């Protein structure tokens, strides 16, 4: 059965499906009515994709919820000059009419696929419910539609999987199911609120592909809400940039990346690590996003704007329309902002240095940290007596080393075991096998006292700055704790040392008596870094230190880390899922997949000339913040999910998803192989494949589409 073509698809593109003008959303709080969205205007034409982009707190999600009518009148007040869907005034509809429209004519998918499905009903039940509430049809018919839709969104064995409960679905599959649910009534408008943010980058690529395909088939319009400019570049036709509850720029996607007109847009773009020269400081938007109760009277971006002038702060700034573009900036006419550096950067790829080819290790000559064959198996308990019935080999024979003052980037998707490696190195988790040497001391053989002593030499910074600081301890207590424990510093001595550390990471020393909740994410991460530095370690393990931060804050922290490294001669083990961030900061990169390192080499080499199909796919999946390049390139989208580490595939663990898999891959584990550029790769393509001693790199490059 083919879906009937929608009437809207045939319409004149100029007739907007969604018109939003002067949308304002207020929430009542103890501080009085708080406008979190003010004067937001944009239109969505039929078949068009509009990207709604902004950092957290910009009001982008609230705006989309307001359009869907999902803001309860008791919680917030939604006002608008115009809020029209397909010519109908949404604000004039009563609750029943609104409900009839939701899910049938406009639908929405959300950020959290893990929690957006009701855990106590089967997936099929929840999808067929969406049919039955809007259409008169039998349960059986609805079920058939649901199964068919699941099949269309790429759920294999849809008939059987429809009977599964959500917990049996992976994150990516759940998001597919959400999409199936949203699209089953063939809506004319889909609002996608950060639908891929919680997913791994390879899964994100799958979902974006799927959305694009379905959009093409159904001819629907999409409002795509995201914080990720790369995703915008890939998917949007028009872009609405929001900052502090307002639209600051509304224009076409090419214009945004080619010639941004608002300083904030420009700042966002230039702070992306993809757009910066590796190793160089990133462009930074100073300060932080203000809270809604503290929005400036004038231009809301003014306090952080390098182009700010006194006139910017005088009065609220109206939006200026120039041609198709709208910009909310006082100086819009006088400023000429630099555009994207993306293309230029790519051409500066460094020359390939020669390196020995063949089998061997990639140990740095003056290694500070030397990790050999590190493994960790977590027991699985099951059955009546909770006996050990198996194990998850989270980390399986990982070896690497880090030189003094060097940064090794460890990259992988969720489940790759990269965070376990971080904890194994510090012996926060006891390894099952393997050896960790730090500056000549065998960490894995130390007793408790020795371990405590060696901990002053290596420290860790965690991903989530919100949970890594004790909410009940002051900054002085947190940062000063290592000093108390190891040096016995107390009282004034300790506080003086803490103050010094805070200044070192760019925070005011006066903040020592404050509690973590008073700080923003970026500031908290600085505090965590200060704590890690307190004992003057030689090695810092950075476990995704910037991945939970907003783009503008992320660049601040990366700059700080690089500056500290230069100053103290620190070595970093930098763990991330984001290759572009790693490439920026790391000297060398190691790529992990299912507990193993599949590729390890100089970062520019790995980034520009991946030798492992997985690395290539990973790179290919990263959205490119340039609509021209991003949409032109041929992408290598990986099929399926990462297999369960409980039961990893035999042979090369990547082979079931590998486009180049050969027979041998399913049988034998590939040995590490050193390519001519010094990259160590574990892939049969290099030793057994048709490209034996050839240039597999080139093949992969062509697949990647030469970024």
């Amino acid at each position, binding site marked *: 059965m083919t879906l009937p073509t929608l009437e809207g698809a045939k319409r004149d593109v100029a007739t907007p499906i969604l018109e939003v003008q002067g949308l304002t959303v207020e*929430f009542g709080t103890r501080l009085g009515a708080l406008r*979190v969205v003010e004067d937001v205007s944009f239109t969505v034409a039929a078949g068009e994709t509009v990207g709604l982009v902004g950092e957290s*707190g910009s*009001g982008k*999600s*609230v705006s989309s919820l307001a359009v869907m009518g999902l803001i309860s009148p008791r919680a917030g007040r939604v006002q608008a000059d115009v809020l029209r869907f397909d010519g109908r005034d949404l604000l004039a509809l009563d609750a029943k009419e609104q409900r009839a429209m939701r899910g049938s004519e406009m639908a929405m998918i959300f950020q959290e696929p893990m929690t957006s499905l009701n855990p106590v009903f089967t997936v099929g039940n929840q999808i067929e419910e969406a049919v039955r509430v809007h259409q008169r049809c039998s349960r059986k018919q609805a079920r058939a539609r649901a199964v068919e839709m699941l099949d269309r969104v790429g759920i294999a064995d849809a008939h059987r999987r429809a009977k599964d409960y959500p917990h049996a679905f992976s994150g990516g599959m759940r998001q597919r199911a959400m999409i199936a649910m949203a699209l089953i009534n063939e809506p004319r408008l889909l609002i996608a609120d950060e639908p891929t943010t919680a997913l791994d980058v390879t899964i994100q690529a799958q979902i974006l592909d799927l959305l694009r395909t379905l959009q093409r088939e159904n001819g629907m319009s999409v409002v795509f809400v995201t914080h990720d400019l790369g995703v915008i570049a890939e998917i949007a036709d028009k872009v609405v940039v929001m900052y502090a509850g307002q639209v600051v720029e509304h224009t076409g996607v090419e214009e945004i990346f080619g010639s941004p007109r608002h300083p904030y847009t420009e700042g966002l773009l230039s702070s992306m690590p993809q757009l910066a020269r590796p190793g160089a400081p990133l462009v930074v938007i100073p300060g932080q996003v203000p*809270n809604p109760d503290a929005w400036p009277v004038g231009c809301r971006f003014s306090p952080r704007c390098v182009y700010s002038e006194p006139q910017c702060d005088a009065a609220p700034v109206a939006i200026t329309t120039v041609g198709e573009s709208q910009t909310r900036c006082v100086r819009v006419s006088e400023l000429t902002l630099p555009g994207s550096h993306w293309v230029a950067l790519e051409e500066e790829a460094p020359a390939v240095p020669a390196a020995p080819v063949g089998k061997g290790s990639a140990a740095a000559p003056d290694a500070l940290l030397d990790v050999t064959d590190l493994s960790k198996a977590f027991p699985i308990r099951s059955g009546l007596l909770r006996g050990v019935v198996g194990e998850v080999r989270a980390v399986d024979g990982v070896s690497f080393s880090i030189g003094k003052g060097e940064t090794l980037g460890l990259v992988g998707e969720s489940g790759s075991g990269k965070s376990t490696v971080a904890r194994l190195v510090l012996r926060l988790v006891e390894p099952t096998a393997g050896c960790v040497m730090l500056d000549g001391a065998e960490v894995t053989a130390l007793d408790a006292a020795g371990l405590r002593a060696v901990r002053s030499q290596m420290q860790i910074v965690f991903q989530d700055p919100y949970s*890594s600081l*004790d909410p009940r301890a002051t900054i002085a207590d947190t940062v000063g*704790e290592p000093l108390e424990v190891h040096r016995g510093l107390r009282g004034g001595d300790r506080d003086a040392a803490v103050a010094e550390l805070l200044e070192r990471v760019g925070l005011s020393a006066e903040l020592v008596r404050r509690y973590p909740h008073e700080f923003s994410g970026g500031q908290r991460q600085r505090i965590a870094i200060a704590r890690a530095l307190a004992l003057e370690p030689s090695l810092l393990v950075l476990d995704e230190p910037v991945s939970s931060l907003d783009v503008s804050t992320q660049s601040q922290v990366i700059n700080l880390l690089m500056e500290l490294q230069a100053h103290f001669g620190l070595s970093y083990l930098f763990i991330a899922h984001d290759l572009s961030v790693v490439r920026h900061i790391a000297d060398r990169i190691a790529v992990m997949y299912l507990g193993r390192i599949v590729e390890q080499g100089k970062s520019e080499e790995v980034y520009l000339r991946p030798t492992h199909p997985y690395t290539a796919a990973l790179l290919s999946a990263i959205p490119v913040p340039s609509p021209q390049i991003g949409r032109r390139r041929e992408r290598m989208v990986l099929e399926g999910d990462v297999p369960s580490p409980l039961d990893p595939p035999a042979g090369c663990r990547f082979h079931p998803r590998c486009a180049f898999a050969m027979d041998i891959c399913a049988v034998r584990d590939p040995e590490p192989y050193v390519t001519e550029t010094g990259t160590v790769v574990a892939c049969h393509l290099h030793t057994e494949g048709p490209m034996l001693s050839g240039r597999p790199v080139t093949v992969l490059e062509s697949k990647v589409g030469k970024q």
Partner: protein
Amino acid sequence: MSFEMEPAIAADQITDEAFAIETGVGTIVEDPWRRVRRRFVHNKAAMAGLVIITLLLLVAVFAPLIAPYDPTATNVGPINAGPSAQHPLGTDSIGHDLLSQLVYAARASLSVAFIVVILASLAALPLGLTSGYFGRWIGGGIDWLMSALFTFPPLTLALAVAALLGPSLINSAIAVAIVFVPGIVRLIRSQVLAVREETFIEASRSIGVGSPRMIRKHVFPNTISPFIVQAALLMGYAIGAEAGLSFLGLGIQPPKVSWGSMLQNGYSTINETQWPLIPPVIAILLAILSFNLIGDGLRDALGRESFRVNE
């Protein structure tokens, strides 16, 4: 029943949380204790509870000044008399002044509640902290013990212990405290299990912080707020439990009185006059209700993001 409701946060509850939930904007920066205080103070019901409990405590503390007679003095007036000018709440069957008894009973009932909660906490906090913090064997062992204690209906176990220990105020307090222990231990344990997974614990461990300091400095402070809420609610339960035990004669013993023993005394003459059953039950009701309101208010004030470990 009508279902034409808009399920969302109600108008008068639109506070920061609602705002944060709906917007994802994050919360407005405020000192957590100040926020708790502000929210609590703005919670009319909780404040009413606090005021009532404060008044009851004042009555208990200043009982000698308030009570018109010695509560143990018999025969101070006619027996089984209704309210009169001399005896505003009347007298009981041996001529005790009921107002004086009510006032002094506040002492016993409230102090039992406090003793119970303190005793139970003293036992349960270390157990809960160790069982949550130390993994499989110690934690599992304590949890096993608590599961076993949990299988006994609270009143049944408390009665058995109180009867076997011999009836007295302190024994009934011990009995009630014992039945409160598993609940607190489990609460603390679940909190600790959650806190233990927090990164800041790992962060401290990576620094080389040992277990005692970890529990003292990081685990305990982060488990305290649900415990405070629980403690307030337990105060209410303790008053109820004491009343039950005393009503059955297994609690406080004459000549001391608690609200529960006043009910027992009143019940013995229920077919003659129902009047003596009213004042003590109002006192019990007010006290339990107030502790519940305070507990609910604390939960709302402490709850959600303000002290959530993972803010």
